[in-house]
């Protein structure tokens, strides 16, 4: 993995895509060695900003040849609004590539990729790499509405089959992204699952993977302040190789985790058996 670095990255493209904004950044140091599932942390608000915390975005593309990377931004608060409305030419303070990428299987097989909303961003690069290694790729994209899908048009280019679902039925099949997943896993004899999206979706995908005893790698979306492993805010309870649970950082030890290691129902709590919970003096 390429070590992360901090750079001034010029915004060379910014265009709306559905409900999102696709930003293209000139960041050769990130593009040179990033893997699917890795992310960048961007400072927002310009010099002297009152918004101190970096915003983290999974890489959608990273092209070593051009030095360009792309991220997908959903505008909802002032920090993301600033990014979405930054004019082309803006110099952004970027740190990356950060986190651990999705692991690729040792042998060719059949992979099912599941994404919710703009959680699909890292899935296209992942799909391409899987197919380069001879794997079959089945891509499932879901969102609340058609507008909140990302990459549905591009999906047939990177996957053997594409399934699209929306909660309101405005695009694709009406329902949740996980609705037809059991059948898909069974029909394709999938031997690995990948997912990125909201926590509830990741948990559901993980449960299906567990039922079929196939590995499942998920990229979590935890709120981060720094992205580089120093602030300890993006933690969640994860079971380690030694069988003990710890509050681990999703920025450095994740964002990709084996789904069966994540204690989904305990996310947002402090389970009593987590290492060091006994030292909290009953204070949760």
């Amino acid at each position, binding site marked *: 993995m390429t*070590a*992360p*670095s*901090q750079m001034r990255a010029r915004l060379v493209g910014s265009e709306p895509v559905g409900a999102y904004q696709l930003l293209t950044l000139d960041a050769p140091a990130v593009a040179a060695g990033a893997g699917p599932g890795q992310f960048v942390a961007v*400072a927002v608000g310009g010099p002297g*900003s*009152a*918004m*101190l*915390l*970096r915003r983290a975005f999974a890489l959608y593309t990273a092209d070593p040849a051009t030095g360009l990377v792309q991220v997908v931004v959903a505008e909802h608060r002032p*920090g993301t609004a600033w990014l979405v409305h930054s004019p082309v030419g803006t110099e952004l*303070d970027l*740190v990356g590539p950060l986190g651990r990428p999705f692991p690729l299987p040792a042998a060719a097989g059949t992979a099912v990729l599941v994404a919710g909303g703009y959680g699909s961003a890292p899935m296209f690069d992942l799909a391409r790499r899987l197919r380069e290694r001879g794997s079959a790729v089945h891509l499932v994209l879901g969102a609340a509405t058609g507008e909140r899908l990302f990459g549905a048009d591009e999906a047939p280019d990177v996957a053997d089959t594409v399934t699209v679902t929306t909660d309101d039925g405005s695009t694709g099949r009406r329902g949740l992204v996980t609705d037809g997943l059991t059948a898909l896993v069974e029909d394709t004899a999938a031997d690995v699952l990948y997912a990125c999206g909201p926590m509830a979706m990741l948990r559901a995908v993980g449960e299906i993977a567990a039922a079929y005893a196939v590995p499942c790698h998920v990229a979590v979306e*935890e*709120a981060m*302040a*720094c992205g*580089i*492993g*120093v*602030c*300890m*805010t*993006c*933690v*969640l309870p994860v079971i380690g190789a030694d069988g003990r649970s*710890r*509050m681990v950082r999703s920025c*450095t030890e994740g964002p990709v985790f084996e789904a069966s290691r994540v204690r989904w129902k305990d*996310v*947002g*709590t*402090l389970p009593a058996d*987590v*290492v*060091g*919970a*006994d*030292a*909290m*003096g*009953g*204070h*949760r």
Partner: protein
Amino acid sequence: MTSLAQVGMGTTLAGVALPSPVLTASGCSAAGRELAPYLDVAELGAVVTKSVMLRPRSGRATPRMAETPSGMLNSIGLQGPGIEAFLEHDLPWLAARGARAVVSIAGGSVEEFVQLAGRLVGAPGVALLEVNISCPNVASRGQVFACDPRAAADVIAAVKDAADVPVLAKLSPDVTDIVSIAAACVQAGADGLSMINTLLGMAIDTDTLRPILAGITGGLSGPAIRPVAVRCVWQVHAALPEVPILGMGGIMTGLDALQFLLAGASAVSVGTAVFHDPSAPARVARELRDALADRGIPGVADVVGLAHREGRR
């Protein structure tokens, strides 16, 4: 004008010579290793490590953080691996890189502080201990040792007895009279003071209609608290001009650092700025050197407490 090469960046903090007056801040740079891609830890005045406790500690549930205007609230709850893992993995890493460590220690009782100080005796690369008697993210919700002169003094006296390096007492701004707490710590043997820790704060999510932080309250840091921090340093330096101070609270730039030196700090810690800019401690040192050169000031030692004196017209 002073040329850049001539600016003396060395400083002395509680009797310890440091090559730069800019340090990291406890809880904002882990034990330094994560910053290695962004700066040279050996060039910093020192790495102030995240408060270590005797045992591994999970910290609180999430959410642990809320962004606030020019600041943030954190409610981590002193998550850490415990002193044994710290001694095995963290201190040797810093020592191998030639970095100086200011080790922040935190305990729930005087006895725990004493045990921590004892375990650190003879450990490699430890320049100073910073005694965290003021973390608001503990069970007592801000009713910390540093809110009571006697409790603060008890911890400091005991740590001072056990330690083999100079001891800094880290003070809370959430007190009526910080000078009386500072004086009590100095009387108990503190070689210097670190100030300030975060202020106890809170934010409420207007969509969920609930507190944002799982811990409900958290510590406020960042530029929002800088004027409070400068005021604290000023008051304590005015009352106790011989006592070395490590100043911190919302330092983002070299000029911010200069304010703390002028108020009476001998060195500064850069904390929350690291979340915004991982190279901030190195950048702040460069900017401070430039600012001193621009003002024709020969070195850091020449500005410590200067704002209390004649200033310049």
